[in-house]
């Protein structure tokens, strides 16, 4: 399957994976450019550490390359790549939970604290998300920040669709409880 690089851009993700399976490394570069931003954003929102998120993303694409032969084109590439990235991310989250237990959690580099980027409300939301238990945090970030469909989340995490829906709902209600008084305070201050 010899396709020149100009032609590659017209190909779907699936077709690019077939190109990669045939040894065309340019296909990997293109997949990387299509997915790096959304994957990085998802991983970063879960880990809250740029450097580690960058490492996980790099490792994700190395695995895409290494495991390219095991990719089955019947399935969606995005689900496959999210599964790889999320497995790495979940491992890192578990590791961090253990370290936190020993009181030695690495620092979390918030890239935009109060009044920057997402603004103060964004900051409040990030804080509240970080306090969620991991299983709720993951589905909430995938649904409400990465905007994945419930089906995509279920496939990427290999969870039943019903479980994903109820976890998202539960996570939103937890956030609602934490954030309600903070949002009200913020609005009161804003009005005065």
């Amino acid at each position: 399957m010899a396709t020149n690089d100009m032609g590659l851009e017209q190909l779907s993700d699936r077709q690019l994976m077939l190109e990669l399976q045939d040894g065309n490394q340019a296909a990997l570069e293109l997949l990387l450019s299509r997915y790096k931003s959304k994957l990085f954003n998802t991983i970063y929102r879960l880990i809250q550490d740029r450097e580690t998120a960058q490492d996980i993303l790099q490792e994700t694409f190395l695995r895409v390359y290494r495991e390219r032969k095991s990719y089955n084109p019947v399935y969606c590439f995005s689900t496959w790549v999210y599964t790889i990235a999320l497995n790495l991310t979940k491992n890192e989250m578990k590791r961090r939970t253990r370290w936190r237990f020993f009181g030695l959690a690495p620092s979390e580099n918030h890239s935009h604290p109060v009044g920057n980027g997402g603004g103060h409300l964004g900051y409040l939301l990030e804080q509240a998300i970080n306090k969620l238990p991991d299983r709720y945090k993951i589905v909430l970030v995938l649904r409400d920040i990465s905007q994945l469909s419930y089906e995509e989340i279920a496939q990427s995490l290999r969870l039943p669709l019903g479980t994903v829906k109820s976890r998202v709902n539960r996570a939103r209600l937890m956030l609602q409880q934490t954030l309600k008084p903070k949002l009200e305070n913020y609005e009161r201050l804003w009005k005065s």
Partner: protein
Amino acid sequence: MRGCGRVKKLISCYLEKDLDPGLQQEIAEHIKFCSECYETEKTLKRISAIARDLPEEEPSFDLAEKVMEKVGFANESIPRTTRVFPAIRRWVWAMPATAALVVLLFLIDTRLNRDSVQLMDQQEQSISQQNTLQDQTVIPEGPVEFVIDNWNPGTRSQVASSNQSLSDSQMLGSAGWPADSLPASFRMYVMPVAQNQMTGTTTRRPY
């Protein structure tokens, strides 16, 4: 109001208009007359808007270059990495260093305490007992687990058998430490070592 629990279970699907029309309508009616569910709906909509407005974080510009370099370099056989991510790696050195420092301070403090207790008691016997115990200390080569049954420098402790596994709280409970008042890292690493130094017993736990 009746039915609030049901509404809360379905509220995400309701907001995403993912329910049968009849059910969608039923929940809309409930929310119209229930102030609590109305407030919940309002806050959830607000949160969803804030989440959508969060800026998208971008990876560093040289990511693709780094990946392609590794792929090109290793080509068919990129080694499987069982690596520690850098953020964690930065902390690796800190743990033994901190533990060593605290143990040192602890030992100095213990030594002083022990000396003063011994002076007060004037019991030569306790000194000789401690000397004997110190001679029995095993220097561990691998990870070790300590179990101390009595917080008393003069009492020989019971040593856990090598296949016995005890939880953190069991270890602390048996030691009589005020477990909750200390940080987890101190409880897990420093306390057992310090206690062991005082009673002079250790046991090696197999890998």
